[in-house]
C-alpha cells in the first residue's frame, strides 16, 4: 500500500473544507498538481472559490507548472492570499 499525500488547508481553504489537513491517496507514480487540486475540488465543492486565488505548494515550494507531479509521502498545501502582520 502506497503512502498518501498529506494535504494542508489554511485560512479560507480550511474553512471551506472544514478541517486543517487530510491524507489523500495517490497512485504509486504520483499525480499532477492540477489533477490533485481537481480531485480536492470535487470532494470539497466549497474549495473552488478559494482555489482561484490560492497558490499550490509542494514540499514547501510553490508549484510552478500545473503538470508538476505530487508523489506518495509528499506534503501538498493550499495557500490563500497571505495576511500576516
Amino acid at each position, binding site marked *: 500500500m502506497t503512502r498518501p499525500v498529506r494535504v494542508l488547508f489554511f485560512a479560507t481553504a480550511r474553512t471551506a473544507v472544514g*478541517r486543517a489537513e487530510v491524507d489523500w491517496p495517490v497512485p504509486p507514480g504520483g499525480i499532477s498538481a492540477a489533477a490533485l487540486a481537481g480531485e480536492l475540488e470535487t470532494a470539497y465543492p466549497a474549495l473552488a472559490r478559494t482555489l482561484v486565488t490560492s497558490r499550490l*505548494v509542494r514540499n514547501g515550494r510553490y508549484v510552478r507548472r500545473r503538470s508538476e507531479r505530487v508523489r506518495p509521502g509528499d506534503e501538498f498545501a493550499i495557500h490563500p492570499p*497571505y495576511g500576516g502582520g
Partner: protein
Amino acid sequence: MSVRLTARPLSIPQAWRELEGPGTGAVVVFAGRVRADAGPLGRVLALVYEAHEGPALARFRALESRARRRFGVTRSVIWHRVGRLRVGEVSVIVGVASPHRAAAFRAARDLIEELKVTVPIWKTERARPVRRPRRPRDRRAGRSAG
C-alpha cells in the same frame, strides 16, 4: 539574527536584547497589535493567526538576508505569533539595527511590508457575532507553530 514563529506572547524587551551589539547606532522596532476594529462579523474581540511553519520560517530567513544585503542591517528580529490573540496583544515584531537611522527605518518598513504579502501566515477574525452562532469547526483554527 533571530526568526521566530510561536504561540507564546512576544516580548519586546527580549527582541530589543537581540538587537544590541557593536556598530548598531540606530535601532528601529515595529510591533503590530490586534486592534478592536469593526469587521464584517462585528467588533473584533480576537484574531486567530495560523502559519505554514516550515515555509514561513524559510521566508523569514530570506527576508533577513534581504535586509542585510539591501540595507546593511547588522542585526534583525522577525517574530510572529500564531494562535488566538486578544485585542491589544502583539502579533508581530520586526526590528533592525544598523549603523545609520535612514537605513534602519527603510529596512524595518521593508521587512513588515514584505512579511505581509510573502509569508504564509493568515489571520481570521473572531468577532462578537452579530447574529450567527460560532461554528464548532472554527475551534480547529490557530494551530500553534512552535
